[in-house]
């Protein structure tokens, strides 16, 4: 990239030096590479969310079902810790790539437009960084609440996940925090699921960007599924 000073000195406008090109060709950390990384780690995280949702829905089967599922995970420490390691690594890489791209995008347009007319960007696409940030905060809160038991809206019992969940969601602000965060999940996944297939180059041609069946399905499933639990507790259907 040239600066304005170099421009004023009038460097040749034609091809880049050959040595430069050969170095560049072996480089992994390109924008396209980072987006592939974001997409792969995003898909890992979404896959986790789907499995996590299926596990959580056991709450509707009552305390025994949910607690024995949790006891099963505790009895398989290898499975549990490998999964946690993969998730942590994915999350770190995902956020790391997001930060690098974000920094690059900020540099890419030093002078802003006076007026901008958006024609295609969606609320979801424009708030990925915000919803992502919110999700990051939520994930920390969520682990402190239901995994570590450090945030205790109701007294925490390591062996009674069902009580921790139902008790927690009976507290207004906790339920509200979860409901809000699930909105973020829906938005982030609605854009992310659609975008990641494109970043991976496995998408089908889509003349209409908002016709995105896979993303709609995943976003609605995750938002609706996760939202239903605090809602059901709050409405007193699950107690």
């Amino acid at each position, binding site marked *: 990239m040239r600066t304005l000073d170099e*421009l004023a000195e009038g460097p040749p406008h034609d091809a*880049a030096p050959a040595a430069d090109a050969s170095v560049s060709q072996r480089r992994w950390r390109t*924008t396209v590479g980072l987006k592939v990384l974001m997409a792969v780690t995003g898909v890992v995280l979404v896959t986790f969310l789907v499995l996590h949702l299926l596990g959580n829905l056991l709450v509707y089967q009552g305390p025994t079902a949910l607690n024995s599922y949790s006891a099963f995970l505790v009895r398989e420490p290898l499975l549990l810790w490998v999964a946690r390691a993969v998730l942590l690594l994915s999350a770190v890489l995902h956020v790391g790539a997001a930060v690098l791209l974000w920094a690059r995008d900020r540099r890419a347009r030093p002078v802003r437009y006076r007026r901008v007319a958006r024609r295609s960007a969606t609320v979801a696409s424009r708030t990925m960084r915000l919803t992502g940030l919110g999700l990051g905060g939520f994930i920390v809160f969520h682990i402190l609440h239901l995994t570590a038991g450090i945030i205790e809206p109701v007294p925490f019992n390591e062996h009674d996940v069902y009580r921790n969940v139902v008790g927690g969601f009976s507290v207004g602000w906790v339920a509200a925090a979860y409901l809000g965060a699930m909105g973020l999940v829906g938005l982030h996944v609605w854009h992310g699921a659609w975008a990641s297939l494109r970043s991976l180059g496995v998408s089908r041609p889509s003349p209409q960007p908002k016709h995105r069946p896979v993303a709609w399905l995943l976003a609605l499933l995750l938002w609706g599924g996760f939202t239903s639990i605090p809602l059901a507790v709050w409405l007193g259907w699950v107690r």
Partner: protein
Amino acid sequence: MNFVLQLWRQKNPRAEGAFSRYEVGGITPDMSFLEMLDTLNEQLASKGEAPVAFESDCREGICGSCGVMINGAAHGPIGGTTVCQLYMRHFSDGEELVIEPWRARAFPVLRDLIVDRSAFDRIISAGGFISVPTGAAPEASSALVPKQGADAAMDSAACIGCGACVAACPNASAALFVGAKLSHLGLLPQGQPERARRALAMVARMDDEGFGNCSWHGECQAACPKSISIDTIARTSRDWSRAKLAAGRRSTPDRTNDSVSEP
């Protein structure tokens, strides 16, 4: 028709620019946007003021020289057209028009509405070509091209390199331009031998020029005068990933036995 223009004036790449307000009259609905600017320049010249610098050449939507932001939309509000083919009938009499140059670090402003788009030329020289001795035109049917491939390549070849995709992108990404070039060559048999290397080299060059990344907002596709599809960007990702994986399988990067010209 009369218009109020808020127009970016900047003397040279290093000067501070600013908006100036102009009133322009005597515009007819069948004038193109550039003819409106010509009229403004005549009016400025008759007052002894410096004319507004903007680029144009063919004025028929095929060369890619022209292009400005009009009220925040690259090439104006209509879509699928260049400013030389955009007519004043699309605006209402008395309207205020904010006219700005493309804004991107990789496209420094040279003067007023003219930006330096040679970053695009350098991306092309990194790999946007086919290195074969062409000779006489080959027999038409000697290289068979499937109809779908030919059509998709042709759609991509329509890119005129205007830079509206970069201008419209919230990240100032050149992904659509690069996607168009990679699809144009990569979908044809003639483009196959260098397909992997082309994707790696053009993507690397695009990054080196300081463009942003693609976040799939789709703004480029909406602004592109040739309606190039963002599917070409997905094709870039696929070609790039495949090339990287293939390069990873070869233990040493083997650059000697493929006959690509070094610049």
